[in-house]
């Protein structure tokens, strides 16, 4: 992720633009809630679900607590399997390594499957600058690439788009009928235009969902078949992966594979769960192990468990703020609740608004398959951001006022009495101003005629 010269992300303003578009908002909200409900259906079909979550969490915490040892074990296995292992401290090192591998193999065209890590490293623009032609092969990711937009969701990258948007993007970039918005037609058009690019590609790049230290396996879970084509068609396969993806044993996959797609899409498994241990005859395989801030986060007592994340997106699908603001409004590679606790670790000033893009309802924590305490980490980030003086101006003013009022019982009683009266008698023009964020997009509730405190006092006296 990039230097600290970036403007702070204004999540609320970006979300307001998203909300203003009613058809997109309605679809986005409904589609993601549908994924959440499908996830619930799968969860209820697995009686040992909560035990699996316990196991997944414990396995990940164990692995992270001995990460260096497991990385060394994985590296030794991978080398024994004939894979070339590379290490990158950050995104720039990762990109330079990938470019060097491509040049050594005289590769000019690269087909890739979805990889959030390469987004994080901003690899594609870098390689393009150096003359490499990159084709995203996941349908959603391809749509986003053709529209010059980053993915808005880590599992369903173009979920914020309607089919009419897709038809327009395709017509503009890869031909096709802009009026034909049939999803089957559009998917088929992408299939027939992407396949020749895969057939002719010099190299393929995939991410990985899990790295198995015991066997050196790199496990890739996908539905479209594009990752297996990207890896198996060209003579060169590069795997780019973050160091936190390790698990100790092959048998541990029996826990994680059971949780991943059920949590992500509400299907029992992905169509393809593929295990790469070494290059096929005549092929070459490289893996780039990337740190990019992970070892730093490992040392942060309140936040290291966010490294348990298996990127299922369940926290995003369940989050009322994410569903109604869209992934792009987070202005970051990782969006939704998990993004709101990962991004500030890279740049607290730039991403200061994100931990506030939450109601703290805790639903994210409830659905997380590896039991990350997401809502507690959101709260912890809020404290750090406030203490660091990184709150946006209006929020800082309101918080200071709230601190004074809430710190004094007398002031608090006076202010609630005033508010009860004010909401009842003030004209709308005065109540629903720009300063009253709570009055935007919603009606203020009718205040009760009496406060709880005075009711309680009366009852005690009578009692």
């Amino acid at each position: 992720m990039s230097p600290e010269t970036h403007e702070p992300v204004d999540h609320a303003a970006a979300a307001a633009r998203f909300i203003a578009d009613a058809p997109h908002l309605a679809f986005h909200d409904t589609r993601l809630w549908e994924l959440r409900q499908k996830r619930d259906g799968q969860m209820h079909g697995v009686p040992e679900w909560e035990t699996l979550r316990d196991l997944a969490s414990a396995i990940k915490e164990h692995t992270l607590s001995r990460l260096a040892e497991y990385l060394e074990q994985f590296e030794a296995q991978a080398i024994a399997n004939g894979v070339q292992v590379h290490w990158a401290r950050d995104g720039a090192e990762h990109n330079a390594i990938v470019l060097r591998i491509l040049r050594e193999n005289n590769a000019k065209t690269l087909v890739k499957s979805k990889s959030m890590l390469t987004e994080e490293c901003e690899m594609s623009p870098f390689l393009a600058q150096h003359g490499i032609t990159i084709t995203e092969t996941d349908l959603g990711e391809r749509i986003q690439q053709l529209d010059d937009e980053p993915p808005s969701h880590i599992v369903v990258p173009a979920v914020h788009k309607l089919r009419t948007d897709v038809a327009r993007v395709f017509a503009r970039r890869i031909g096709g009928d802009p009026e034909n918005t049939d999803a089957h037609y559009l998917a088929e058009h992408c299939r027939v235009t992407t396949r020749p690019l895969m057939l002719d590609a010099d190299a393929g790049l995939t991410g990985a969902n899990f790295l198995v230290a015991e066997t050196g396996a790199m496990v890739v879970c996908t539905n479209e078949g594009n990752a297996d084509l990207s890896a198996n068609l060209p003579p060169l396969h590069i795997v780019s992966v973050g160091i936190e993806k390790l698990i100790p044993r092959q048998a541990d996959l029996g826990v994680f594979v059971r949780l991943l797609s059920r949590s992500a899409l509400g299907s029992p498994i992905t169509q393809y769960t593929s295990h790469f241990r070494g290059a096929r005859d005549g092929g070459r395989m490289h893996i780039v192990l990337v740190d990019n801030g992970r070892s730093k986060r490992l040392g942060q007592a309140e936040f290291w468990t966010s490294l348990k994340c298996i990127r299922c997106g369940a926290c995003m699908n369940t989050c009322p703020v994410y569903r109604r603001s869209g992934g792009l409004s987070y202005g970051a590679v990782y969006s939704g609740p998990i993004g709101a606790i990962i991004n500030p670790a890279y740049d607290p000033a730039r991403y200061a608004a994100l931990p506030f893009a939450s109601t703290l309802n805790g639903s994210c924590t409830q659905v997380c398959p590896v039991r990350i305490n997401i809502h507690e980490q959101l709260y912890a980030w809020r404290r750090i951001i406030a203490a660091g003086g990184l709150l946006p101006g209006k929020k800082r003013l309101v918080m200071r006022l709230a601190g004074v009022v809430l710190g004094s019982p007398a002031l608090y009683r006076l202010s609630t009495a005033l508010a009860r009266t004010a909401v009842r008698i003030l004209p709308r023009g005065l109540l629903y101003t720009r300063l009253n964020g709570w009055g935007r997009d919603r009606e203020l509730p009718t205040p009760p005629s009496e406060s709880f405190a005075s009711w309680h006092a009366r009852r005690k006296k009578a009692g």
Partner: protein
Amino acid sequence: MSARDDILAACRAARPPGDHPLPNLPAFAPASSDLRAGFEQGLALMGGRSFDLPAGTALGAFIAAQFPGERLIRDASGELPEFPRVDAVNRPRDLENVDVAVVRARFGVAETGSVFLSESELQVNTVGYLSQHLVVLLDPVALVAGIADAYQRRDFGEVRYASLMTGPSATADIEGVLIRGAQGVRSLTVIFCPRTIEDAAARSAG
């Protein structure tokens, strides 16, 4: 220091406090004792279909009858000498015009309807994806109950490439509309049948 040594040192320095033992993995009761029925249900949910080979029907004729319009059928199972072999091609991409490919799975998983296919079953890995349709032969006794049982097997560690394949390739990336046949096969058909011809025999004959 090299990037490798730097990263390893940083991970050691940042080691979270506490013991964090690696848990033992308990065995869970299978969802259903009828593995065959579970497999068929799981496969159907993921968009695949399955058949028994009808008694007295030749396998090759049965497969051809399932795909009346398709011209090029290639075989990786070694059990169908009437079809051209998958491993007769020179390059992975040469399988792009295959209409139907036939492979034999090493085993299936009842929990999800998945089949295990590695480079030794596929012969050329891309045949599982470039073909328009995939036919998977599966011995009904070669079923394990769950995904966790599958990962207790040594098969994964003995090959360079293995996929648990579950139904055809699929996407729902455009407005959530489910489409079978994203970049890979458009359909996946499992035919329950024990191996009839030994692969070695087929090889020497072919």
